[in-house]
């Protein structure tokens, strides 16, 4: 049998990859990066970086960065809450998760964005739990009815109560890390167990150009020590916070991410790191950051290629849209990003459900996008030689009367070769009219209700639930908050 080719996209000429990495390393050495965190500066200094205390600037030599690259694992294994399902983040594996974090939700009935409340976050978690092509959860909504002092931990706490999938999350405050880690350890059954079987990825974003803030640097250090994977989210905006050229933006991306990687490695050698990002092509008229622009997707696919060259797991914000409702723009931007990201072999693709420059989530869009992801996974499976000979024997005794629909070969293969239609309309015209001319958005809305109905909560033991409640309550009390939003399973 001839091996199946996995379709693959590489945008950059191999020599260009090497040149971009080379300039990125030189930039780290000559220009350096501002790191607004004393502990990280100490650690980098001890490891040989040149530190300028007054300006909080760190210049990282090539040898240091190369040693850090060598100690970073090329792939990571994440596990669900039960510790049974394993997800490899590395190679050309692709895992989709909802785009995060939105502050509004698109209300289907009014078609308006409104502030997200805890009840919306509950529905979000439940729905994503039922969407089989979204392998990971995200703490994807920031609910307005939770005080901001505890918002980071609260959304993870709620998620762990409602979902068994691995999480993509992050801190909003330095103090948020400890209770978040404690919640994860409570589900996993201990800190050592969490280190062996990570349950969550923490996002950490440098501030372009060439700066790591105190909060995000601390997150890198804390995660590295706990064995929690850090996802480095460099996010230059072309012509505004990075160079206008795509290749120039990639050089900065390499420098910022490799500085983050070095911070993780000097804090704990061997700690898991993902080479990710959320860069964008800056809109020179509106001053906005379109995630659905093709140039944004080109930057993403290109840095993923660079990440692979560096033998690192990769991530990108793709499969999302800047549309404000679920219109054709929402569909084409999401699908284009999902396809390009998957073909580029991006390991973690954050985007489904998202609208409006990473600021809104839509339950209907999550369902539609899950269908896009299904098609993408089929595409990645490629075209296989299923049998030998491929076809010749099936034509023995073939006549014009032969019914292929009733042929055993059809029954044997059609479900393996073809995914069954999701929500996409495949009715003949008259049937579509008779059925009420229903749009995919209306079908998705019905499907959301059906899925929420069939949702099953994860089988968490009473002791684990109690421990999660205790951690959350203690964190809230420490922040002077004595009441949390009421929610029900």
């Amino acid at each position, binding site marked *: 049998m001839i091996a199946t080719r996995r379709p693959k996209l590489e945008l950059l000429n191999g020599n260009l990859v090497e040149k971009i990495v080379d300039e990125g390393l030189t930039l780290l050495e000559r220009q350096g990066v501002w790191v607004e965190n004393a502990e990280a500066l100490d650690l980098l200094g001890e490891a040989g970086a040149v530190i300028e205390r007054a300006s909080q600037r760190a210049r990282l030599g090539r040898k240091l960065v190369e040693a850090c690259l060598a100690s970073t694992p090329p792939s990571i294994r994440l596990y669900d809450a039960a510790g049974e399902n394993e997800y490899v983040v590395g190679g050309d594996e692709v895992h989709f998760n909802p785009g995060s974090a939105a502050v*509004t939700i698109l209300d289907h009935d009014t078609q308006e964005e409104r502030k997200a409340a805890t009840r919306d976050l509950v529905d979000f978690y439940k729905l994503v739990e039922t969407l089989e092509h979204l392998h990971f959860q995200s703490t994807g909504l*920031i609910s307005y009815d939770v005080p901001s002092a505890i918002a980071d931990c609260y959304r993870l706490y709620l998620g762990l109560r409602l979902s068994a999938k691995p999480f993509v999350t992050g801190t909003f405050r330095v103090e948020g890390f400890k209770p978040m880690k404690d919640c994860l350890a409570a589900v996993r059954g201990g800190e050592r167990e969490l280190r062996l079987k990570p349950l969550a990825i923490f996002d950490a974003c440098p501030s372009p150009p060439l700066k790591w803030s105190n909060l995000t640097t601390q997150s890198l250090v804390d995660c590295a020590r706990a064995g929690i994977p850090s996802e480095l989210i460099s996010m230059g*905006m072309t*012509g505004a*916070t990075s160079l206008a050229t795509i290749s120039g933006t990639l050089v900065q991306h390499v420098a910022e991410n490799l500085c983050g990687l070095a911070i993780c490695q000097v804090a704990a050698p061997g700690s898991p790191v993902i080479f990710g990002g959320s860069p964008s092509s800056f809109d*020179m*008229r509106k*001053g906005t950051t379109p995630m659905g622009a093709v140039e944004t997707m080109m930057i993403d696919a290109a840095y993923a290629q660079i990440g692979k060259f560096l033998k690192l797991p990769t991530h990108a914000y793709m499969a999302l849209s800047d549309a404000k409702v679920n219109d054709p723009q929402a569909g084409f931007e999401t699908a284009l990003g999902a396809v390009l990201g998957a073909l580029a072999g991006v390991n973690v693709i954050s985007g489904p459900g998202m609208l409006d420059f990473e600021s809104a989530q839509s339950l209907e869009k999550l369902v539609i996008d899950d269908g896009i992801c299904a098609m993408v996974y089929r595409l990645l499976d490629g075209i296989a030689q299923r049998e030998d000979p491929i076809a010749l024997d099936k034509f023995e005794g073939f006549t014009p009367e032969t019914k292929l629909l009733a042929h055993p070969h059809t029954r044997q293969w059609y479900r393996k070769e073809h995914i069954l239609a999701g929500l996409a309309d495949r009715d003949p015209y008259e049937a579509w009219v008779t059925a009420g001319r229903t749009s995919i958005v209306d079908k998705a809305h019905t499907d959301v209700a059906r899925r929420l109905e069939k949702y099953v909560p994860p089988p968490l033991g009473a002791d684990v639930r109690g421990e999660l409640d205790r951690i959350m309550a203690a964190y809230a009390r420490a922040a002077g908050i004595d009441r949390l939003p009421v929610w029900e399973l």
Partner: protein
Amino acid sequence: MNKAELLKSMREAIVAGDRGAAASLAAEAVRAGLDPAEVVETGYVPGIQRVGELWEQGEYFLPELISSAEAMKSAMAVLEPELRSRRIETRPGGRIVIGTVEGDIHDIGKNLVASMLQAAGYEVFDLGADVKLERFIEEAEKTGARTICLSALLTTTMSNQKRFIGLLREKGLREKYRVLVGGAPASRKWADEIGADGYAENAVAAVKLVKSLEPGGGA
């Protein structure tokens, strides 16, 4: 270069966003003993007005807009000492306090508005990003500015624009200041809802808004 040619070149330097030319033409005007106020009004200001038109026509994008604003600044840096020595109000447009509200570190949009206001002849006190609400009032009281511009990029921080209006009311200062709001999540409706004096969707619109709200500005 005679005076007419000089004024024409000044206008062109601003439209082209040429900082070096804008400044050297200003220096040439000073050497020639021309009236600095006249040079600003008939040389540079028509240039920045043309830039606004080109923006509105969709010809110019943000890089051109900002380059022109920067060219305007470099010309004014040369002319301001001259204006001051003749006791001419260097910033006839008045004073404006601007910043991104607390909790929000986004400042690209705010910087654009600040640059365009400066280019249009206003004295701009830019407090930066993540600015405590009290700071806006302190700065306005200190500088004598009557217009305060608040930017917010996040829906979570735009509520601070509303809080700011409340803070002014508490202090009995609401009538003293014009409060203008902007930023991605803001809108005219939001401005009305919180009782702000105006909303602008981009930097060019912000300059028009500020002008329209001036006494005799037609609003």
